[in-house]
C-alpha cells in the first residue's frame, strides 16, 4: 500500500534508487517471524549515510539474530521530503518499506553536531512526536541514539529516550533482549527505561535532572531512583574476535565512499589534544593481520566491490601494517581491486609503505600538520616535525607526486599571527624542497593546497575548557594567511566559520540548548552541514528567543573545576588527565604516544590492566 504511493512519486525525484531499497546485500525478513524491529536511522542523505561504516557493522550484527530485524532509514532529499509530506507518506524503512513509527526501536547514529536538526525532522516526518515527553508510555518506538556526539548528548536530551554510550556491538543486543523480555511481560515504557538504565552504557536522560547556577553553568546533575551517579561507556575488550560483517549493502547509486572497508584498529595511540576521537575511542586495540586479510577477502568477494579500504583513525599505526599490505596486495592485484589507505600519518610514512601504496595509486597526497609552527604543533601534541614532513614529501616527489594538500586548523589555543604566517612558510619550504630535488618529476610544477578549518573545542579533550576563537578573530587570521601567500604555487581555501561556531555551541551545549535546536528546526533549519542549506541567522534567532547566548557555549573559557554538562558520563579518560594535558599544552610540552609511554589517562584502570603489554 505504502509502496504503491511511494512508487507513484519516485520518478519525480532525483536519484530515486535511494528511496526504494532492493540493493544487493540488503536483508529482507518475514515480518511474521520478527520479535523486535529496529529502524537504524542516519540523519543525513542516503549518499552520506551509506558511506558510514558503523551503521554497516550494527546492521549486520542485529540481523544475525533470526527474530530481530534491522532496517535502514535516511533523510530524504528536499525534493522527496516535499512530496512525502504532500502525499502523507510517513518516513519508512528501506527494506520493508514499512513506516518506522511502528518499529520497536528508532535508533539514530550521531556522527556530527550539524545533523541534530535532521533528527527532529526525521522524527516529525515519521509521525513520531519530536519531544520525548509527548510520546506515550506504551512499550514501543523507543527512540535511541549512539555515536561520538552522544558523549555530550545533553542538547539532544529532550528528544531521546535512551543514549547508548561507547561501542554498540554488545550493548545494542542486550537492550533489545531486555525489550523483548519486558514486552512479553506487558511492561510500560517507563518501566523499561528504568530497567535499561541499569545496563552499563545505557544513559536515560529523563532519569537524571540538571540544576544550574546563576551564571548559567551547571550546578549539579542528580541521578533519580538510586541509579549510578555516572554512566560508563561500553567498549569491546576482545576487539580481534568482535563480530565483523562479511557482506555490505551495495548501493546502486554513486555514494561518497562506495567500497569494502575493514576496520583494522580502534582507538588511537597519538593523543592529539584537539582530537575528540583520539580520546573517546580509547583504548587502542587492533585486529590481527590474518583476521584483517580474511575479512577483507570475504567482504570483497561477497560485495563485488572494486575498491577496498582499511579503516581506522590511523591505519599506519597498526603494528602489523606491513603484513596486512603484503597479505592483501597480491589478492587486490589479481582481482583488479583498488586498495585505498585513508588516514595515513606523516610521521611514519616510510619508504616501504610508500612503495606499497605507489603500487596501487598515484594521485594527490594529503597531509595534516594541523599547525604551521613547531611550537603550535607541540601545543596540540601533533607529533609531526617539519623534518618528518620534508622527508615524506621528498619520498613522495621522488615517487612522482607533484601535488600535496596540507590541512591546518585555525584558532587553536595560544595561536598568534606568527603561527598563521608559519602555515605559508611551511608550504613555501615544501615548494622549495621540490625544486631542490634533482630527481623531481620533470616537466611539471608543484602545487601546494592549503586547507584550513576553524578549530572546535570538544568534550573529553584537553581543550574542553578552551574558548573557541570568535568570528572576528577567525576573519583576521584568514586575512593574515591570505596576505602572507605570495607564490602562485600555493593556494589556500577555507570555510565560513559560521558552521564551526554552531558546531562548538552544540558540542559543549547543555540541556537547555535543546530548546534552541527545537526552535531552529521549527524555523526551517535542516541539513545544517550543507552550506547551501545552513541558515546562521535562524540559529541566532532561535538562541536569543530561548534567552541563550551562543558565545556562552562557544567562546567562553571554563575553569578547571566547572561542572561540564557531560561530566556525569564516564568515557574512561579522567578529568585530572585532561587538566594535566591542558597545562602541558600551554607550556608547549608534548606527551608521548601510548605505545612508547603510558601517560596515565585513566583508561587502563577501567579495562583492568595496561593497554600495551
Amino acid at each position, binding site marked *: 500500500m505504502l509502496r504503491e504511493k511511494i512508487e507513484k512519486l*519516485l*520518478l519525480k525525484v532525483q*536519484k*530515486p*534508487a535511494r*528511496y*526504494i*531499497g*532492493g*540493493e*544487493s546485500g*540488503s536483508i*529482507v525478513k518475514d515480518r511474521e517471524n520478527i520479535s523486535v524491529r529496529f529502524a537504524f536511522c542516519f540523519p543525513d542523505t542516503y549518499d552520506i549515510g551509506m558511506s558510514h561504516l558503523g551503521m554497516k557493522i550494527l546492521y549486520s550484527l542485529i540481523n544475525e539474530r533470526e527474530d530481530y530485524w534491522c532496517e535502514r532509514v535516511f533523510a530524504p532529499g528536499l525534493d522527496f521530503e516535499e512530496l512525502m509530506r504532500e502525499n502523507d507518506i510517513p518516513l519508512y524503512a528501506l527494506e520493508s518499506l514499512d513506516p518506522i513509527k511502528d518499529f520497536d526501536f528508532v535508533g539514530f547514529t550521531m556522527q556530527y553536531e550539524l545533523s541534530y536538526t535532521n533528527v527532529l525532522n526525521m522524527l516529525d516526518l515519521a509521525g513520531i512526536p519530536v519531544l520525548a515527553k509527548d510520546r506515550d508510555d506504551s512499550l514501543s518506538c523507543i527512540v535511541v541514539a549512539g555515536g561520538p556526539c552522544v558523549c555530550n548528548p545533553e542538547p539532544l536530551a529532550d528528544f531521546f529516550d535512551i543514549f547508548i554510550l561507547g561501542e554498540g556491538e554488545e550493548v545494542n543486543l542486550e537492550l533489545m533482549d531486555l525489550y523483548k523480555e519486558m514486552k512479553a511481560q506487558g511492561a510500560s515504557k517507563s518501566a523499561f527505561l528504568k530497567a535499561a538504565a541499569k545496563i552499563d552504557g545505557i544513559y536515560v536522560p529523563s532519569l537524571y535532572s540538571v540544576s544550574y547556577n546563576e551564571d548559567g553553568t551547571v550546578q549539579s546533575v542528580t541521578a533519580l531512583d538510586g541509579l549510578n551517579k555516572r554512566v560508563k561507556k561500553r567498549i569491546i575488550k576482545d576487539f580481534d574476535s568482535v563480530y565483523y560483517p562479511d557482506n555490505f549493502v*551495495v548501493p*546502486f*547509486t*554513486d555514494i561518497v565512499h562506495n567500497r569494502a572497508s575493514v576496520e583494522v584498529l580502534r582507538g588511537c595511540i597519538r593523543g592529539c589534544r584537539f582530537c575528540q576521537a583520539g580520546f573517546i575511542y580509547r583504548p587502542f586495540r587492533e585486529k590481527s593481520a590474518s583476521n584483517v586479510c580474511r575479512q577483507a577477502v570475504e567482504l*570483497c*568477494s*561477497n*560485495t*563485488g*566491490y*572494486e575498491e577496498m579500504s582499511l579503516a581506522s583513525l590511523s591505519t599506519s599505526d597498526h603494528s602489523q601494517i606491513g603484513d596486512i599490505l603484503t597479505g592483501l596486495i597480491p589478492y587486490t592485484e589479481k*582481482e*583488479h581491486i583498488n586498495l585505498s589507505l585513508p588516514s595515513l600519518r606523516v610521521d611514519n610514512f616510510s619508504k616501504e609503505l610508500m612503495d606499497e601504496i605507489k603500487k596501487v595509486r598515484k594521485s594527490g597526497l594529503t597531509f595534516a600538520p594541523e599547525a604551521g609552527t613547531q611550537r603550535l604543533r607541540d601545543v596540540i601534541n601533533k607529533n609531526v616535525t617539519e623534518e618528518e614532513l620534508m622527508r615524506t614529501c621528498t619520498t613522495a616527489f621522488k615517487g612522482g607526486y607533484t601535488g600535496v594538500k596540507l590541512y591546518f586548523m585555525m584558532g587553536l589555543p595560544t595561536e598568534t599571527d606568527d603561527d598563521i604566517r608559519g602555515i605559508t612558510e611551511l608550504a613555501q619550504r615544501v615548494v622549495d624542497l621540490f625544486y631542490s630535488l634533482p630527481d623531481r618529476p620533470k616537466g611539471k610544477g608543484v602545487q601546494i593546497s592549503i586547507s584550513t578549518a576553524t578549530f572546535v573545542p570538544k568534550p573529553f579533550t584537553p581543550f574542553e575548557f578552551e574558548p573557541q576563537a570568535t568570528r572576528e578573530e577567525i576573519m583576521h587570521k584568514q586575512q593574515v594567511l591570505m596576505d602572507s601567500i605570495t607564490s602562485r604555487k600555493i593556494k589556500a581555501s577555507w570555510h565560513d566559520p559560521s558552521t564551526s561556531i554552531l558546531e562548538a555551541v552544540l558540542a559543549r551545549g547543555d540541556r537547555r540548548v535543546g530548546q534552541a535546536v527545537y526552535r531552529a528546526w521549527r524555523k526551517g533549519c535542516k541539513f545544517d552541514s550543507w552550506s547551501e542549506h545552513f541558515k546562521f541567522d535562524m540559529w541566532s534567532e532561535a538562541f536569543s528567543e530561548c534567552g541563550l547566548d551562543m558565545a556562552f557555549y562557544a567562546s567562553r573559557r571554563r575553569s578547571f573545576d566547572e561542572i561540564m554538562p557531560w561530566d556525569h558520563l564516564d568515557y574512561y579518560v579522567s578529568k585530572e588527565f585532561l587538566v594535566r594535558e591542558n597545562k602541558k599544552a600551554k607550556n608547549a610540552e608534548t606527551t608521548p604516544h601510548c605505545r612508547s609511554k603510558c601517560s596515565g589517562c585513566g583508561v587502563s584502570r577501567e579495562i583492568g590492566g595496561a593497554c600495551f603489554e
Partner: protein
Amino acid sequence: MNKIRAVFAKTGRAKYISHLDLNRCMQRAFKRSGLPVWYTEGFNPHIYITFALPLSLGYESGCEIMDFNLTEEVPEERILSALNGAMPEGLRILKVYTPSTKHTDIAFAEYEIVFSGEPEAVSKSFQSFMESDRISVMKKTKRGGVKEIDLKPDTEVISLGIRNGSFTAVLRLPAGNEKNINPSLLTDEFIGQTNIGAEVESVRRTGILSSSGEDFF
C-alpha cells in the same frame, strides 16, 4: 575469449536503477558471480560489459541485452546460475548464448504502456489520437538542440485493449543507434493534447527487433 550475450529482465525495485548505475551494478554482480570474466586492459581495468539499448529510468523490461566476454569456456547453464545467484532483487538473467548478431542490427523495440483513467474513455481518445495525420513533437537532438519530428509514420500499433481494468497499448517504435524514439514522446503528447486525466502508469519493454522485424535474440 568467449563472447557471451545475456538476456535479462529488469522489474520491481530494479526499475529505478539508472542506466549509468546499471553498469556499475552489473560490474559488481559479475565479480560476485566468480565467473572468469574478461577485463579491459589499461590504466583502470574494468569488466567489459556492453548494453544494447539503454532503458529509461522507471521502465520495466523483459528483454534487456548485454554482452560480455569470458576468458574460459563455461557451460551456459552454469553462467546462468552463477549470474542469477549474484543479481539483486528485480534483475534476472533469462538466457545466455553465443551471439550471432550485432547490437547495430537492432531497429525496433516494443513497449507495453498501461494508462490510468477511465479505460473506455482513454481507449477512445487514444485511438482517435493515433488516427491523426501528423503527430508532431519536439525531440532533443544529440547536439543538444531540439527539432520537430512527426511520430506518426514511425509508430506501429501492435495491439490496444483493456487489461486488468486499464487501457493498455502495445506499440512498436524505432530503436537503436540510427533512430531511437522513446515512447514517452508519444504518450506525453497524447496526455497533453487530450484532457481526460489519463496518465502513464507503467511502461514495459516487451521486445527488441532487428530491421527485418525478427526478434533480435
